[in-house]
């Protein structure tokens, strides 16, 4: 995994693998139960409306995962992730129209192309840090949005862009044959998302994760410790772009039709807002963020509440997170629950366990 990493001179023997503690086992069990429920129970229980919404949740969980990695693990704030998602969706749509390649190959290709572009853009941008990096990603996202608005998404036309302005019957973007129906495609997206989370988890547990943690703490200190800061920052950019590109590929099949108006710059800001609210420091935060971003609007729409209230809520949420709760919901809610539990135990009479 860390083959290209800086090789340090000391060849210390690896510590023996520790036995997984009770916490790890519980966590694995929780993940397994959630996966099983979403794979088998949810498609049966939910109406098609909510199955579609949950497919979007699975897609955006990957996007928030990518941004969460950058923000929470490495401390790089990107305000252009929706543009990256659009690149992934564009690539996948182009390949799906042009070829009969199997869907997983297309997803992989979308991820790799997005990764290459993201790295290409990231390489010069990495000279910048903090505020300036965030602002330049905002600028680049704006530029990509302008290009997309002119180039449009492929709709089965010919040429490199694959866009045919005159075509009346736009063919839908195809789905894998094993996942043609909406519930099946939902399962497909959940599996892809789970794989991406696994990929991210492996990175965090191994050498890149430790390097990122060092960089986040202090870049000069990481440099002094012999960490190749540029390499690992670029690595994070590449990984996040890859994951977001794959998400774009899944999105292309989920919606069947793509329009450049569906990827406004504003969404990149909302995305950062929900990632911060969900909690950038844990993988759960990415799931919470995706639920906030995609399930909540669907629920509100069902209730006839304007989505604008949600925008306002996200704005207030960002301010709240930044001023009082840097860990976000994924960190805050368990803590609050524990506090509530302690309070209840203290105030309830004997028998409650004291």
């Amino acid at each position: 995994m860390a083959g290209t990493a800086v090789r340090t001179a000391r060849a210390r023997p690896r510590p023996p693998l520790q036995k997984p503690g009770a916490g790890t086992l519980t966590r694995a069990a929780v993940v397994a139960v959630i996966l099983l429920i979403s794979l088998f129970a949810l498609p049966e229980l939910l109406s098609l409306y909510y199955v579609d919404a949950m497919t979007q949740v699975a897609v955006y969980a990957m996007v928030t995962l990518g941004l969460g990695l950058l923000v929470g693990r490495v401390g790089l704030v990107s305000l252009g992730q929706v543009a990256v998602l659009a690149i992934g969706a564009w690539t996948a749509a182009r390949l799906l129209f042009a070829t009969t390649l199997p869907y997983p190959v297309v997803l992989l290709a979308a991820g790799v192309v997005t990764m290459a572009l993201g790295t290409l853009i990231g390489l010069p941008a990495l000279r910048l840090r903090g505020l300036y990096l965030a602002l330049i990603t905002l600028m680049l996202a704006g530029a990509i949005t302008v290009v997309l608005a002119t180039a449009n998404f492929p709709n089965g036309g010919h040429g490199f862009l694959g866009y045919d302005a005159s075509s009346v019957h736009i063919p839908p973007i195809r789905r894998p044959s094993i996942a043609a129906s909406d519930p099946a495609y939902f399962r497909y997206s959940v599996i892809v998302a789970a794989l991406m989370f696994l990929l991210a988890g492996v990175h965090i547990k191994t050498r890149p994760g430790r390097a990122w943690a060092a960089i986040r703490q202090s870049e000069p200190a990481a440099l002094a410790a012999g960490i190749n800061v540029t390499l690992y920052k670029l690595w994070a950019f590449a990984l996040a772009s890859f994951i977001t590109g794959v998400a774009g590929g899944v999105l292309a099949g989920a919606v069947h039709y793509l329009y450049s108006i569906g990827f406004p710059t504003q969404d990149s800001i909302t995305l950062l807002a929900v990632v911060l609210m969900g909690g950038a420091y844990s993988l759960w935060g990415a799931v919470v963020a995706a639920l906030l971003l995609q399930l909540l609007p669907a629920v509100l729409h069902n209730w006839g509440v304007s989505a604008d209230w949600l925008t306002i809520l996200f704005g207030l949420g960002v301010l709240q997170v930044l001023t009082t709760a840097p860990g976000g919901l994924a960190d805050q809610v368990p803590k609050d629950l524990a506090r509530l539990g302690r309070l209840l135990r203290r105030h309830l009479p004997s028998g409650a366990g004291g």
Partner: protein
Amino acid sequence: MPSWQDFQPFIVSGLALGGVYALSGVGLIVLYRATGVVYLAFGAVGAMGALIAWSLVNASVPGWVAWLVCVASAGVVTLGYGLLFGPALAKRDPLVKAVATLGLTLVLFGVMDLLWTTGGGQSRAITLPTDNGGFTLGQIQVTWTQVVGLGAGVAITVVTAAFLRYTKLGTAMRAMANDREITATLGVPVRRVEAAAWLGCGLLGGLAGLLLADLVALDATTLTFLVISSLAAALIARLRSIALTFVAAIVIGLIHDLLTPIQSLSNYRDMTPFVLAAVALLVLSRRRVISLSREEA
């Protein structure tokens, strides 16, 4: 290739646009130097001011009252945000402060979409009385609004530079730009100076919103993200020099509008500020400095 004749009207409109970008950029820099906040809600407060003005004019309130309310409301919202969240975030990273203003942007965005729905394809417009008059320069028709746009840019740049140089408050702001703590120990009422910077920046935001609503379009999204263009000018000046911001803003405005008659590039003209800012940032940051301070990139 279009002839020189085709370009002429766009020189004028480009200069007007550049002037408004310049006054926005100056507002952003003053606030950044005084408080360390890159105010990303600048466009949103301007947009809301312009929408309020539009509603007032529609309710047959006299125009000048509506315009004053537009500028004042932007100032009040900005000042309110500054008083509420400024102190709480004062010691945080500049990045955190900037992201927090994105929170305000989202709130304002939601409020604007709720109150001024954009359904039905109806379009709003603000017409200033300066739109009607004008003069011809050679063969180019120039409206007074365009003159006001450029004039306001020049005036704000000069006045702000003089203000920072010669007044007590301006000196205090420059001191805060260097070090907030030391300035406070010297007896400068830090909070009050910051409040003044917030208010000034907000008022400029309202003015920019009003002018852009007339020169470009009255639409929440458009106006909110026009801040990025003025931010580009400020970034080219590395959030430091007011004079450089002015020049960059004029260049951005000119290039943007001069690309309009060129068929092949016309669609891409909105990229101008992004591309210029990105290139400028990358060139300027070629010398990579590693420092332990979190202040500078």
